C-alpha cells in the first residue's frame, strides 16, 4: 500500500521529497520497525556465532573425532560425543515410532470423523497438552511412568520380545525407553494439531469425488485425503522430531544419565541436551565448557536443519489452500 498524498504541483527534487516523507513520519516508522525486525536475524546470527566461537577450544583439539569417539571423561579431559548423539537419536526415533501412529490416528479422527464442534474442543484440549511445561512431564514421569515401566511393561516386553537385543537386560525404569515414551507424549500435540490443520485444508471436492466413486469414508480418508496432505503431514513429523531432539528437562529426569552406548532400550543412556543441563554449571575447566558448548552447537545445527525442512514442507502444502502459513 502506498501513501495517499495529494500530488504537489511543482516537481520537487528527490532530496526534498525524501525529507518531506521523513517529516511526515512514515519513513521513520518504517525504519524503526525494520531495525527491530532485522534484530531478529541479528540475534539468530549472534547465537550461531557465540556457539561457534565458544567451542573453538575443543574444535581445534579434537576436530571431527569429537563426534566419533565414545569416551567422555572430564577428569582426563577426554571428550567424545558419540554416546550423547546415540542417546538423542535413539530416544527421538522411539518417540516417533510411538508418537506418529498415535498422532496421525488422532488427527484423522479429528479431521474426518468427529463433528466440527467436538473436533475443535478436542483439538483445544490437545493444544493445552503442548502448553504443559516440560519439567512437569519429567516430574510426573519420575513418579508414575518409571515404576510402571520397571514393574509391569519391561517384564512383559522381555518375555515376549526378549529375543531382540533391544529388550534384554535388567530394567531400572529410567533409561532410553522411558525417555522415548515421555518424548512421544510430548510431541503428540504437535503432530496432531498441525496434521489436523493440514487435513482440514484438503479441498472438499477431493472427498466428494472419492465418495461418488463408491469409496467408503475410511477408504476416502486413507487413500485420498491423507495422500493429498502428505507433504504437510511429513512436515508436522519433522517439526515434532526437532522438538524431540532438543527436549531437555523431561529427558534429563528419566534417561538415567549414563554416557554408554547400549543396544538395550532398558539400559540408561544420555542425550546431548541432558548432558548440557546436568554438567554445564559444574564444568570447571575451559575445555570442559568448550566441549559442552560444542555439543550445543551440534544440537543447534541438527535442529535448525530439521526445522528448516519441516517449515518448507508445511509452507508448500498450506500455500496450496490457504494464504498464510
Amino acid at each position, binding site marked *: 500500500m502506498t501513501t495517499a498524498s495529494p500530488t504537489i504541483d511543482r516537481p520537487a527534487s528527490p532530496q526534498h521529497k525524501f525529507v518531506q516523507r521523513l517529516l511526515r513520519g512514515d519513513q521513520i516508522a518504517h525504519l524503526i520497525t525494520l531495525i527491530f525486525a532485522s534484530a531478529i536475524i541479528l540475534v539468530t546470527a549472534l547465537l550461531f556465532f*557465540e556457539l561457534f566461537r565458544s567451542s573453538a577450544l575443543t574444535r581445534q583439539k579434537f576436530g571431527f573425532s569429537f563426534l566419533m569417539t565414545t569416551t567422555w571423561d572430564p577428569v582426563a579431559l577426554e571428550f567424545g560425543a558419540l554416546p550423547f548423539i546415540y542417546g538423542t537419536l535413539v530416544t527421538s526415533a522411539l518417540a516417533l515410532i510411538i508418537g506418529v*501412529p498415535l498422532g496421525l490416528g488422532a488427527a484423522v479422527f479429528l479431521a474426518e470423523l468427529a463433528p466440527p464442534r467436538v473436533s475443535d474442543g478436542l483439538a483445544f484440549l490437545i493444544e493445552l497438552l503442548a502448553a504443559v*511445561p516440560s519439567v512437569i512431564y519429567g516430574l510426573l514421569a519420575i513418579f508414575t511412568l518409571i515404576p510402571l515401566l520397571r514393574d509391569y511393561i519391561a517384564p512383559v516386553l522381555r518375555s515376549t520380545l526378549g529375543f531382540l537385543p533391544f529388550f534384554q537386560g535388567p530394567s531400572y525404569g529410567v533409561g532410553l525407553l522411558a525417555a522415548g515414551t515421555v518424548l512421544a507424549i510430548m510431541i503428540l500435540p504437535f503432530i496432531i494439531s498441525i496434521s489436523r490443520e493440514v487435513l482440514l485444508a484438503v479441498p472438499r471436492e477431493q472427498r466428494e469425488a472419492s465418495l461418488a466413486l463408491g469409496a467408503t469414508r475410511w477408504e476416502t480418508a*486413507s487413500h485420498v485425503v491423507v495422500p493429498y496432505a502428505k507433504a504437510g503431514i511429513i512436515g508436522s513429523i519433522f517439526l515434532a522430531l526437532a522438538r524431540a531432539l532438543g527436549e531437555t528437562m523431561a529427558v534429563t529426569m528419566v534417561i538415567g544419565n549414563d554416557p554408554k552406548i547400549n543396544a538395550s532400550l532398558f539400559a540408561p543412556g544420555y542425550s546431548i541436551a541432558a548432558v548440557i*543441563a546436568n554438567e*554445564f554449571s559444574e564444568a570447571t575447566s575451559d575445555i570442559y565448557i568448550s566441549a559442552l558448548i560444542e555439543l550445543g552447537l551440534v544440537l543447534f545445527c541438527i535442529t535448525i536443519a530439521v526445522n528448516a525442512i519441516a517449515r518448507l514442507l508445511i509452507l508448500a502444502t498450506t500455500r496450496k489452500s490457504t494464504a498464510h502459513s
Partner: protein
Amino acid sequence: MFAMTGLCAAVAVSVLFFILGYLLWQGGRTLNWQFFTQLPAPVGETGGGFANAIIGSAKLLLLASLIGVPIGFLGGVYLAEFGGTTWAFIVRYTTDLLNGVPSIVMGIFAYALIVLPMKHFSTFAGGVALGVMMIPIAVRSTEEFLRAVPNSLREGALALGATKWRAIATVVIPAAMRGIITGIMLDVARVAGETAPLLFTAFNNRFSSPGWNQPTSSLPVMIFTYAIAPYEDWHRQAWAAGLVLLSLVLVTNIAARFILRRQSLVLRG
C-alpha cells in the same frame, strides 16, 4: 478402522486429564499458605515454602517481557505493515527457525553472552535467555492479528488524510490490540515453564535474591531440583510447585481461548 483413530484421540486427550488429576491429587495435599510466604527450609528440615522462587520467576518474566515484547511487537508490525516480499520472507523464516532452537541452546547463548563476561550467574542473564525465547511467538502473533484487521479500516484512515504511520498507530494497532495482548500473554505463559535456559544463567538460590545481579531461584528450576532430590518432603513440595505452575499456564491458555474465540496460536509460532 475409524474406531482405532478415535481411540488414538482419546489416548491423547486422556493424557491431559491424567496430568491434571494427578497433580491436583499430589500437589493439593501439600499446597498451603506457607508455600507462598516462606523461604525453603534448610536441608534436612521439613516445611518451608517457595516464596523466593515465585518472586524470582516474576522478576525473570518481567525482564524477559521487557526484552522480548518490544522486539517481537515492532518486528511483527514490520512484517504485517511495511514488509516487502523478500526481506519479510527472510525475517519470517528466521523467526520460525529461532522458535525451533532448543531451549537449552538459548541457555548457552545467554551464558556466553552475559554470564561469561560478568563472571557470575544472575537474574539478568536468565531474563535475557527467556527474553530471546519470547521473540518468535510475539512476532508471529502480532503479525497474524494485524493481518486480520480488515483493509477497509486502513483505507478509511488514509482517505481521511492520515499518514501511513498514523493510520497504523491510531487505527490498525488499536483494532488488533486485544489479540496482540492475548498472544503476548500466551508467550509469557510459555516461557514461565522453561527450565533449561535458567539452569546456568539464573542458576538457583535458596534465599531471596534482591536486585538483578545475583543468582535467583525460579519455580521450574525448583521443581527440577526438588524432584530429583532424595527427600520425601522435597518431592511433596515439588508436586505443590508443579500444581501452581501448571495452573498458571493452563489458566492463561484457557483465558486466551475465551478472549479470542478462535484457533489458539500456541503451536503456530
